[in-house]
């Protein structure tokens, strides 16, 4: 059976042959410790470095490539955006937070708040 190795938390999870599973979903279900916040590929909190088995990961979509930028070229993927169909090993920094916790998200909130201010 294919196996996902979560090397940072020293966990392994098997899944059925022929299945294609979402990496973050497997991590949450099996308490494997990948940090996460949103589930939309926006925050980047769940970025992981693929140490082995990159060929068994789904082709990244535009949202993920844009969010990771040059990290993608360094072997990183967003766990929430990545489907796996074979043996893979991933690692991460247990203390990591979102990629830009100060910009995109808060810009959107700021726009909402300012619009309310304008309205009285």
């Amino acid at each position: 059976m294919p196996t996902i190795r979560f090397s940072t938390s020293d966990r392994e999870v098997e899944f059925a042959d022929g299945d294609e599973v979402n990496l973050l979903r497997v991590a949450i279900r099996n308490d494997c410790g990948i940090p996460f916040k949103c589930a939309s590929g926006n925050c980047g909190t769940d970025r992981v470095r693929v140490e082995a088995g990159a060929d068994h990961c789904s082709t990244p979509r535009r949202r993920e490539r844009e969010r990771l930028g040059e990290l993608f070229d360094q072997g990183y993927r967003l766990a929430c955006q990545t489907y796996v169909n074979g043996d893979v090993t991933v690692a991460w920094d247990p203390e990591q937070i979102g990629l830009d916790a100060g910009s995109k998200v808060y810009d959107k909130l700021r726009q909402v708040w300012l619009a309310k201010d304008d309205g009285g």
Partner: protein
Amino acid sequence: MAELLSKPAFREALEDAIKGREAKNASFSQAWANGELSREHFARWAENHYHYVGPFADYLGYIYSNTPDTATDAKDFLLQNMYEEELSDVRHTDLLIRFAEACGTTRERVMDVDNATAVTRGLQGWCYAISMREHFAVATAALVVGLESQVPSIYRRQYPVLIEKYGFTEEEAEFFDLHITSDEIHGERGYQIVLEHATTPELQARCLQLVRHGAEARFSYTKALYDTYVSPEPAVANPAPALA
């Protein structure tokens, strides 16, 4: 009296409650995945789907208000889910309307509830009722496990068809792409919350009942789209007079 199920047994029962009722197998979903629909059909779908998912943050808000402050994991999940629906990037309903406009309909038509079927309006009403009235673990089971967790299995078959057969751009079809992954995670977190907080046999039984009802509701909603827009029953030439 029923006994409390272990978490693995309860999870299996929750998954079984959806089986046989999956919306991906409803006639409209099958026709979509097989490339048998037209852009006009997608437009009618969008005009209905808006009234089911448009208030999703509202449903979650009612569940949030019923969630005790000790259930931090559930409150965090509900807030994050609401935030993603409405504020984190493009509002999800705006992504739906973007797709609808690419299908040839308008924002005004999408937002007009008179363009939704009675079954769609019933599904919306069911979601409001459950979110307002049920224990937060039960409501999470109904709306997140019963309804939302099915999304990836539906859209993973429909999204490639939109791009490859119908020629929609990735931007026009972003609503689907986004939900394939986000609802994987929402669904899984929903399961975790239900497993953690449905702590009595009665709560577990109610969760299972409403997951079943939710799956049936989504299946019926999807089937009604086919029956209404793709293969409507012929009009009755001489309808019988209404009974007094």
